[in-house]
């Protein structure tokens, strides 16, 4: 009787021990697996953090911290007239250097108001430059989204490599601006430029690299530090002006030009 009891007791004990061992093994397995995943999470997290620290602060994915060659100039055809286009410290200067009126336009390719303003008065700026009444400085700065920095860089690449296409590219960058383009990568800009007729390989490379993006950022700081408060902003002969529409702009420039003569 007691022997039988002992036997079954022993059996139970063994079964219990086995169960416990199995449970412990299961737990160990779970901890090992969780440990691997958590370890990988930490490692990957550190790698991502390093990537973020290493690449943020610069305005973009692209490496570009070059400066466009200020002073380089070319003759381009605007509204049927041959007009000098010159690369400046802050952007592109269009018009005869001895024109009586100087216009400074601060624009951000990513700013919706700039897009509207370009649609309203963009052609008037080209007209006054072509007519010889004004020299227009298109200053590229960037406040809203990275599209502005990438677009600004693309504009300068074109002004440098294929200046005859610059006016087309300049207005196309505004027309093209929208929700889905705000995070376009530089590859999309290169394809866009090719669609617009850019064929020069170095120009396309320049756009793909975002070569002048950092320059746009530096420009932005300089402009904001010197009294520009937003985009678009219009300065005529060094004084801030209202955002004139097409007709009033042409009229104002003609008046100033004839008064100056």
């Amino acid at each position, binding site marked *: 009787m007691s022997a039988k009891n002992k036997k079954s007791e022993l059996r139970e004990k063994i079964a219990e021990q086995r169960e416990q061992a199995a449970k412990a093994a299961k737990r160990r397995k779970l901890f090992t697996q969780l440990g691997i995943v958590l370890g*990988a999470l930490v490692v*990957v997290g550190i790698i991502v953090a390093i*990537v973020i620290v290493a690449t943020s602060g610069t305005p973009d994915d692209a490496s570009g911290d070059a400066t466009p060659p200020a002073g380089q100039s070319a003759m381009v055809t605007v509204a049927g007239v041959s007009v000098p286009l010159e690369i400046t410290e802050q952007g592109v200067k269009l018009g005869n250097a001895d024109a009586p009126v100087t216009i400074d336009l601060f624009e951000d390719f990513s700013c919706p108001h700039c897009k509207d303003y370009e649609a309203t008065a963009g052609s008037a700026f080209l007209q006054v430059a072509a007519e010889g009444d004004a020299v227009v400085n298109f200053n590229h700065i960037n406040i809203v989204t990275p599209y502005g920095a990438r677009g600004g860089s693309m504009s300068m690449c074109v002004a440098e490599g294929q200046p005859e296409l610059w006016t087309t590219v300049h207005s196309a960058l505004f027309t093209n601006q929208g929700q889905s383009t705000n995070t376009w990568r530089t*590859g999309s800009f290169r394809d866009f430029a090719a669609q617009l007729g850019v064929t020069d390989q170095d120009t396309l490379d320049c756009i793909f690299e975002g070569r002048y993006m950092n320059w746009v950022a530096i420009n932005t700081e300089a402009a904001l530090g010197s009294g520009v408060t937003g985009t678009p902003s219009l300065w005529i002969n060094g004084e801030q002006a209202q955002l004139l529409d097409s007709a009033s702009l042409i009229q104002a420039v003609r008046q100033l030009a004839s008064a100056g003569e």
Partner: protein
Amino acid sequence: MSETTSGSGVTAADESVGSIRRLAIAWAGFGAIALFASFMLTNDRIRLLQNPDVDLICDISPFVACGPVMESAAGALFGFPNPILGLVCFTIMVTSGMAILAGARFGNWYWIGMQLGLTFAGGFITWLQTQSLWVIGSLCLWCMVVWATTIPLVVLTTSFALANGQWFDRRRGSSWGRGFGRWMHEYRWVIIALWYLAVIAAIAATFYREFAFMWFGTVL
């Protein structure tokens, strides 16, 4: 002890590693989700063709947008939109899973075919991920659903088939393949988690600026 029997103990045909019912549920479940995503992609592609200005549900933010992805060259690698491939293949996944649940047993050649298809799928989504991240520069919601379901399908099916010698006669299954399969089966969720983690990390490293801008309004 029961799990680690190896070597000579391969006689019992029904002593399988893992449960084929669970695998079948995974096929049907993940397959159905991916099938739905493929359907949405195909449908959106047609709607986009009918009206290029249509507002698609999957165009969530500037960079989480399926339009650019669908219109890219990679979106139709074989000359027709990729989701058509998904519609056919994920239907096979669901049907096969349901068939097993209904009591069907598939021959070795069927498992080999399944494996070839899934291995191709795993490679294909990985290539599409690189395209989406670094060439197209947009994330596509339905595409990511397909990625997220294909990964467990590949891992779960491969580990089960290896561990149970589904590709060859059960008794002739190579022992190293089974050993590797058992190991893979044991760590299947870890493998899936690591694979997910790698993809998420690549997305984070590529798009952290956009996410920071979208969620926190900060420019990094």
